[in-house]
């Protein structure tokens, strides 16, 4: 069950721009992987001046085809380099990292087929929710609320196959004008369990909105090792953490997905 972490050799099968600054890359790996939604990989730029991995969430993985899909935003030098990778480019990423969403637990807490899960995705936090929506939709009802800056949306239609999708945009050009929570209020959306991935202000708002309902948040932090050794990527926890016996959990191993009431954000 607990697969070894390692450098996994991969070859770029497809790389395309899907929105302003947003790219989708498909990597083929020969060896079968075991992947949970919300887990991530560490992708390394080739540039020798760049030492550290870039943590990128797994958007989708299909064992049948060996294709691992990453959707990312060009942020700085590393992701800029990735966006130039062409079909046939070989690389080796560090994986599979992080805990991922506990799909069974979420579906069960939601009440299974009669219950519902509400997914919140903001900006570049949207990609990992796609695999989550797919897996959850086999067990419970899934409603997704996606927040974008403008009408230049991405992945939106792919979510529609798993349940109703609502959008919010900062400029009001698509869906509700405002935040994902504005969209919830405007459309009277509800859910028994909440899952969110996106910028910290959104996570904070969702945590507050959850009000006693089970809520899972995917956090982001700067990383160096990606495997729990360097203690770079910690977040504040309400309880004493098992590793360092303080109040710091490592986002790269105990996370990135945390029960909202366990973390202070």
């Amino acid at each position, binding site marked *: 069950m607990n697969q070894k972490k390692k450098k996994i050799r991969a070859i770029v099968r497809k790389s395309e721009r899907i929105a302003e600054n947003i790219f989708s890359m498909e990597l083929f790996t020969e060896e079968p992987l075991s992947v949970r939604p919300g887990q991530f990989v560490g992708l390394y730029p080739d540039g020798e001046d760049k*030492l550290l991995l870039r943590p990128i969430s797994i958007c989708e993985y299909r064992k049948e085809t060996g294709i691992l899909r990453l959707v990312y935003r060009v942020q700085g030098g590393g992701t800029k380099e990735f966006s130039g990778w062409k079909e046939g480019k070989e690389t080796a990423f560090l994986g599979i990292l992080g805990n991922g969403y506990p799909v069974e637990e979420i579906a069960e807490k939601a009440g299974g087929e009669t219950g519902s899960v509400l997914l919140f995705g903001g900006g570049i936090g949207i990609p990992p929710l796609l695999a989550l929506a797919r897996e959850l939709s086999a067990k419970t009802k899934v409603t997704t609320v996606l927040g974008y800056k403008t009408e230049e949306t991405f992945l939106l239609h792919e979510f529609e196959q798993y349940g109703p999708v609502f959008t919010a945009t900062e400029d009001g050009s698509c869906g509700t004008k405002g935040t994902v929570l504005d969209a919830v209020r405007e459309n009277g959306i509800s859910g028994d369990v909440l899952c969110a991935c996106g910028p910290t202000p959104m996570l904070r708002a969702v945590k507050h909105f959850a009000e006693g309902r089970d809520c899972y948040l995917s956090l982001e932090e700067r990383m160096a090792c990606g495997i729990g050794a*360097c203690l770079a990527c910690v977040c504040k926890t309400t309880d004493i953490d098992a590793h360092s016996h*303080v109040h710091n959990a490592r986002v790269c191993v105990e996370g990135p997905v945390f029960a909202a009431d366990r973390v202070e954000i």
Partner: protein
Amino acid sequence: MEKTAEKTNRPDMTVEIAGVTLQNPVMTASGTFGSGMEYEDFLDLNRLGAVVTKGVANHPWEGNPTPRVAEVYGGMLNAIGLQNPGVDVFIERDLAFLKEKDTKIIVNVVGKTVEDYLEVVERLSEEDAVAMLEINVSCPNVKEGAIAFGQDAKALSDITGRIRRVSKKPIIIKLSPNVTDIVLLAKAAEDAGADALSMINTITGMKIDPESRRFVLANKTGGLSGPAVKPVAVRMVYQCAQAVKIPIIGMGGIANAQDAAEFLLAGASAVAIGCMHFHEPDTALQVVDGLEDYLVRQKLSSVRELIGAVRE
């Protein structure tokens, strides 16, 4: 069988530090390798000369706020702030794990006061599995203690002497490069009874994001490590090796066997691999294998022949 026959023709990789024989001169650098558990998926710990653990204090330390790391050209800055679970948990969990391995265990010790250090040293002195203690008096990322002892020859001499008197293990003093003359500190440590020296800890640096106009690290400053610091580290190892008789463990930006050989030639008796593990998690093992091949190519029968053997 063939393997053993081949092995006998291989160069002798053993080195000795303060009476402790290491199967090869390659260690992990403190703080970059945890206690080795997380790296077991990537390399066989039994093949390393030693595992040097993350700094251990008398009580759990929270460390600094995040962001704690930043990438810079050819290296990184870190300001972890020595988060650690304290010596009790360390002994119970990390040491219990490490003592099953066929490698030497070197525990990095930190404290805020001399008494803190002494408490940890006394506790670890009772642990048979611990081969040596590395005294971290050079972490640039904590406000109290640590660095203060490493930047002043008198303070360094005092703490080294006091630790020497209570420690039943050989002590390695880890030197800071953030000083005007590292040789002064190396000598002070040697005179006060240090059994070995390790260098370099990270070089204090800073990164500012011009777009947001903010410091990248929450701590503002952080320690620079990685290939960018290697020339500074090699120079410091060379200078200190000229001035002291005790062995030196060299580190700073080692990425491969060639880099390791540079440190040995400069006068180090062993080397440690730090943040290159974040790039290639099995770097230390690649250095072990690469160093053996290098010795064969150089027609040397023992790695010890390399130590300080740089030609003018």
